[in-house]
C-alpha cells in the first residue's frame, strides 16, 4: 500500500527519472564537486604561494645585510654601518619583564577560573573581560600603558614600562591556553588525588598544573612570539628609534652582582627598528628594514613552530 501511495504521488508531482537521467544528473553533480575542489585547492595554493613569495622577497632584499656586523652594530646614520644590537638587546630584556609578569598572572588566573571560580555573575564578569581583552587592538594597550604606566605610575618611557605593556597583551593568551590545558585533564584524576586526602592546592600543584604544563608552555611561547613582534603599543609608550647605547648590564662585578638599573633604561626593539628604517626614504635603509624583518620573521616562525609542534606532540601523547 505504501508503495502504491508513493508511486502515485510521484506520478502526480515529479516526473520519474529514468536510470540514464539519474546517472547523467549524478555525473553533473560530481563535476561540480570536482570544480569546487579544484577551486579550493587552487585558492589555498595561491594564498600560501603569495605569502611564500612575500617572505622570500623579504629575505632576498635583506640578505646582503644579514651578516655578523648587523647583529653587533648600533643603528647609524649611514645605512651600511647600521645594525640591530640595541634592538635585539632591548627586545630580550623586555621579553624578560614580560615573561616574569604575564606567566605567573596568566597561569594563576587560568587555574582560578577553571578550578576555583564559583559559577556566578562575578565569575562571568571576569570571563567576559578575559575574552574581550584578547580582542582589544594592541594599540589600545599602548594608550593604556602611556596613560597609566608612563604618566600615572611615573615609570617613564623605560624597559619596565614596555615589558609590562607587552605583559598585559600576552596575558589573555596565557590564560586561555592554561584553561584549555586544564580542561583536558579528566575529572577522574582530580578525584583520585582528592580521595587520598589531598587539599585543593595540593591537587593543583601536584597534578593539575603539572599535567597541563605542556599546554601552558605552548601558550607562553605563542604569547612571547606575539609580544616580540608587537610594534604599535611600544611606539606609544615611547620607544626610541635611534639608540646608540645598551642598557646597564643586569649582572655586575660588584656585590650584590645583580642590578636592576636596566629596568629604568630607554630602549628600542626589533620591530621598532624595522619600522624606523622603513619610514626613511632612502633605499639603503629599506634593505636594513628587510634584514631586520627577516630576523623577526625567523624568530617568530621558530617560536610559533615550536609551540605548534609541542601541541601536536601533547595531543598525540595523551593517554586518558
Amino acid at each position: 500500500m505504501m508503495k502504491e501511495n508513493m508511486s502515485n504521488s510521484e506520478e502526480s508531482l515529479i516526473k520519474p527519472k529514468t536510470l540514464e537521467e539519474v546517472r547523467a544528473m549524478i555525473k553533473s553533480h560530481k563535476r561540480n564537486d570536482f570544480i569546487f575542489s579544484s577551486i579550493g585547492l587552487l585558492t589555498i595554493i595561491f594564498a600560501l604561494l603569495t605569502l611564500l613569495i612575500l617572505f622570500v622577497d623579504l629575505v632576498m632584499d635583506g640578505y646582503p645585510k644579514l651578516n655578523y656586523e648587523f647583529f653587533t652594530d648600533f643603528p647609524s646614520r649611514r645605512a651600511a654601518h647600521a645594525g640591530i644590537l640595541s634592538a635585539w638587546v632591548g627586545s630580550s630584556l623586555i621579553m624578560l619583564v614580560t615573561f616574569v609578569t604575564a606567566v605567573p598572572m596568566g597561569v594563576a588566573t587560568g587555574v582560578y577560573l577553571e578550578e576555583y571560580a564559583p559559577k556566578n555573575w562575578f565569575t562571568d564578569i571576569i570571563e567576559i573581560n578575559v575574552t574581550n581583552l584578547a580582542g582589544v587592538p594592541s594599540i589600545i594597550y599602548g594608550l593604556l600603558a602611556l596613560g597609566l604606566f608612563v604618566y600615572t605610575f611615573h615609570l617613564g618611557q623605560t624597559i619596565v614600562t614596555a615589558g609590562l605593556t607587552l605583559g598585559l597583551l600576552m596575558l589573555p593568551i596565557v590564560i586561555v591556553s592554561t584553561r584549555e590545558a586544564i580542561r583536558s585533564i579528566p575529572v577522574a584524576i582530580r578525584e583520585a588525588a582528592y580521595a587520598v586526602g589531598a587539599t585543593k592546592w595540593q591537587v593543583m600543584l601536584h597534578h593539575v598544573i603539572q599535567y597541563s604544563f605542556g599546554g601552558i608552555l605552548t601558550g607562553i611561547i605563542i604569547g612571547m612570539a606575539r609580544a616580540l613582534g608587537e610594534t604599535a603599543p611600544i611606539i606609544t609608550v615611547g620607544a626610541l628609534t635611534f639608540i646608540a647605547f645598551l642598557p646597564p648590564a643586569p649582572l655586575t662585578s660588584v656585590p650584590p652582582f645583580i642590578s636592576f638599573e636596566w629596568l629604568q633604561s630607554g630602549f628600542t626593539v626589533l620591530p621598532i627598528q624595522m619600522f624606523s628604517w622603513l619610514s626613511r626614504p632612502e633605499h639603503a635603509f629599506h634593505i636594513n628594514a628587510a634584514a631586520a624583518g627577516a630576523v623577526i620573521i625567523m624568530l617568530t616562525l621558530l617560536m610559533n613552530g615550536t609551540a605548534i609542534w609541542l601541541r601536536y606532540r601533547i595531543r598525540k601523547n595523551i593517554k586518558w
Partner: protein
Amino acid sequence: MAQNKLDIKAEAKNLNFFYADGTKALKNVSLPVYENKITALIGPSGCGKSTFLRCFNRMHDLYPGNRYDGQILLHPDNTNVLAKGVDPIEVRMRISMVFQKPNPFPKSIYENVAYGLRVRGERSKSAVDDKVEEALKGASLWNEVKNRLQDLAFNLSGGQQQRLCIARALATDPEIMLFDEPTSALDPIATVNIEELMSGLKNKLSILVVTHNMQQAARISDYTAYMYLGEMIEFDATDKIFTNPSKKETEDYITGKFG
C-alpha cells in the same frame, strides 16, 4: 542478620542526599558497614548506589551545591563523617577509594603509591619506600613491578593499573576502602584478580563495594544491600539476599524480572 560478635565499623543513619539541582538522590538510607567484611551495594543504574558510596569520603563536597542530611558514623571514635566541623580531607585520609575506571596519575608507579603518604607529610624516604612496597604487595602487584617502579603508570595494563590504584588507596592504612564498580572497565581475568585481592584485603580493613554485577556481589561479599530509586530496599547477609530475600522487589531484581 547482624550477629552481635561483629563490630560495626561505620554506619549510615537516615541519610538523605541532594544534588545541587535539587534532586533528592538518597532517601533516608541507613546501612551498617561491618568490620573486616565486604558489603556490596547492588541495584539498577541510577538507583543511587554510587552516590551513596561517595558520601562516605565526602567526594560530593568537590562540587558546590551538594547537600547531605543525616549521619555516617565512623567507629570506634563515633565521628560523624558528614558533620560540618569534620574536615573532608581528614575523612579521605581514613576512608580511601578505588574508582570505576583505573585512574592512575601520569607519574611513576612509585609516585602513584607514595602520593597519599606525601600528602600526609611523610618525609622519611625509607618509611615511604617500605610503605610503597607493602602496599604494592598488598595489592599483589609487587612482583610484576618491583623492577620498574620508576616506569610511568600508564604503561601498565588495565588490570595492573586498577591494582596500582588499590595499592595507592592502601598505602595510607585506611580503615575503610570504597570500591565504585572496580572491575567494570576490566577484562574477565583482571576481574578475577581484583576480586581475589578484595577478598584478601578484608582481613586488614572493611570494604564497601558498588557493583552492577550480581554474580560479583554473590561471589565476594558477606553482606549485600539492594537499593532502588535512592532508597535502601533490603540489607542482609549475602547468602540470604540471593537465596531467600524478604522483599518482593529484591527478589524481582535478583531473578532478573527487572533491572
